């Protein structure tokens, strides 16, 4: 009992601090101190918690000041956390336009909305439940119902795997205005391509302040500060 209470208190402490920082940021916004608000809200990430509202606000303020990279970064995060908010989708579309990227494809929108309703953990639970149900029905000699349930379980398993892969795959957004992809982790190395703010890149190894990334099939090294993980 005591252990459970301690665990509960440990979990509640970051949320309480996050609440305080959120309210501080909201008050500073009301006073017109946007820089202070951004600092307060960025501090919430250090508490180990996240929120679609915070990511939306940080992305919106970045969009206002023309910081395309951070605008897309925060708004993509917000969409993944809760795509059901219309403001999030609207601002993400603006950020993508500012980054020179078109609107999200329909499947992506639908996928994000599904993710807002059923998180990856829910998809995993649903896939397991359907799989066991299909097995039970087959054992009861209800072959047609069993086949239907089995097909549904298969689709759910694929969806759950995709959702988990998306959370696992190291993908980042370029937050520097632009950066050269270099052949080696050194400023003296030859540049092979250039990425711009708001582009999505696949993350690779890190080495001495540099990060290997892949953009449009081209691999190279950029300064670690030039990209931020989605």
């Amino acid at each position, binding site marked *: 009992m005591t252990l459970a209470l301690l665990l509960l208190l440990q979990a509640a402490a*970051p*949320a309480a601090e*996050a*609440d305080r920082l*959120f309210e501080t940021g*909201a008050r500073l*916004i*009301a*006073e*017109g*101190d*946007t*820089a202070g608000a*951004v600092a307060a809200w960025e501090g919430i*990430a250090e508490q*180990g*918690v*996240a*929120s*679609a*509202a*915070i990511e*939306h*606000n940080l992305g*919106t*303020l970045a*969009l*206002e*000041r*023309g910081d395309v990279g951070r605008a897309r970064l925060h708004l993509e995060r917000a969409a993944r*956390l*809760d795509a059901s*908010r*219309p*403001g*999030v989708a*609207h*601002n993400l579309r*603006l950020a993508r336009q500012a980054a020179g990227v078109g609107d999200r494809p329909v499947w992506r929108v639908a996928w994000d909305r599904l993710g807002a309703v059923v998180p*990856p*953990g829910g998809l*995993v639970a649903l*896939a*397991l439940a359907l*799989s*066991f149900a*299909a*097995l039970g029905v*087959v*054992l009861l000699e209800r072959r047609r119902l069993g086949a239907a349930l089995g097909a549904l*379980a298969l689709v759910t*398993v694929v969806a*759950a*795997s995709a959702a*988990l892969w998306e*959370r*696992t795959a190291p993908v980042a957004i370029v937050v520097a205005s632009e950066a050269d992809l270099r052949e080696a982790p050194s400023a003296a190395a030859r540049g092979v391509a250039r990425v711009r703010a708001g582009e999505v890149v696949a993350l690779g190894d890190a080495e001495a302040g540099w990060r290997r990334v892949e953009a449009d099939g081209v691999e190279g090294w950029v300064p670690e500060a030039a990209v931020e993980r989605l």
Partner: protein
Amino acid sequence: MPVRDLARSRLPKPKPKQLLRAAFRLGALAALAVALAGPASGQTADASVSSRGLAVGEELTYSLTLRGGRSGPVDPPAGSGALRLSSPIPTLDITTTFNGETERRVAWAYEATRTGVGRIDGLRVTVGGRSLRVDPVQVRVSPAPAASAPTVSSDEIFARAEVSRETAFIGQQVIVEYVLYFQPQIQPRQTAPIGTWDAAGFWREEMEVPSAYPRSVTLGGEPYEAVTIRRIALFPTRAGELELAEMRFDVDLLRTTTRGFGADPFAPFFSPFSSRYDEEEVTAPAATITVRPLPDGAPPGFGGAVGQFELETVVDERQVEAGEAVEVRATISGTGNTATLRAPQIEPPRGVDAYAPRADREVFRTAEPLRGVAVFAYTLVPQGGGVFEVPAAPWSYFDPADGQYKTLRTETVEITALGPSLAEAAAADPDGPAALILSAPVWERARPSVTWLWVALAGGLSLPLLAGLGLLAVRMGRRRLGAASPRGRRKRLASAIRTRLDAARALDGPAAAAEVERAVHAALDRLGVPAATLPAHVLPSRLDAAGLAPELRDRTLALLDACGRVQYAPGLAGTPSASALVADAEPLLADLPTERASEAVPA
């Protein structure tokens, strides 16, 4: 540099005795001069002697320099005590206009007659309509003749490069003056540099020459006049022994010589001097400056500024509407090289757009050392309403006087922008970004680990998958086992009978009859009667032995007979059609038992 004693007077205080004398001598002219004089800044009268100490029998030169306008006749001041005027005729009386300034120099010789103190009286002169007083001069006369042998320059006129310092740090200001020296009988009128001048390793700024008036100096015991003809501020750009190349000048001059009248009886009616214009080329020798590198320990952001500086921050407006520009000016003034000063790096707060600073630079070329001002103007535009604080920006320089780096800072500037904040502005614009979300958020774990979900999915799926595979394996095994049992065989036969009948329906004539016959054979085979291999006459008894009812036996034999006729005598009268065979076969096959009666024993 040794300089002769100088007695100079500007607007002397009047004394009663002198005023009386002046009233006598100048009368109405003096009153007119006072009325017209105005500010007394332009006229001067200076007296100097070539030496303050001399031996008995030696001569000194008393020079009177009048500047700022034309002057009338001047009588030599009387010598008293140990000095005596050698001749009332001046040894020099020259009026020159140099760079637009009029100057007259008059000189007389005085002889030391005995030891003690000698005195040259003061006098009053009129220059440019203004009466000026010149103070008396005293000298000391020693008894013994001077034994010194001064090193007299043989040159009448020459130039030298005089540097303000011979060692400097990189970037430290060094002033080089080119000074023209000439003897009193020479009056330079104009100078012009010849050719180019090389000063590799220096950034150069030409300075203005403050005064064109020569000054009296003594070099090697000889009286000279000196005038600065060019002044340049140098800023070394690299370390090492840097050389200033020699510089040549073309000098237009007036040379005065004393006439030799000898016993000419008309000599008193003529001036004792003759003058002629001339031209000389003089060369200032090269000079070397030792330049040291800057010491280590430069602060971050040091941009190479060397000298003494001040930094001032000015803001044109501290309160504006959102979207309007605010100009912040950082003014850096000092003795360094203004042309290369870098702007302080101002970091605007978020929500404020900043443009690259605009630089205006100005150099004051008359000041010594050379001074300059660089004004960096930053344009800041608040994007929304609110109070924004522009933090102080550091700016570092090296002060060679103290030998250390120093850091100045711009002021922290607070800008108040009126109007809606970014969030409010966003909400008001339908085409702009959606408003901020300020309601209480729902917290989730930031970037939760999904590894356990992978494990749960894989582990959870493995159970039904394994179970399904096991079930499938069991059923397949059962199916294989069932195929060898009587029930399985019956099933397989029933399937074969249905297949035959379906084939017969699709065919016609003998082929259909053959399929019907095979179906009947299959059905009889289930009763243990291999009808296909038995002779026709044996078949009835075998059917009886299999326990088949007589009526069913006869229908079976009749169907087989009809099948034979359709196959082998299709044209005969009374031969049924294939469809009739199939129609007869279906009820028969349904009526035939699926297994042999238990009491029946096959033969």
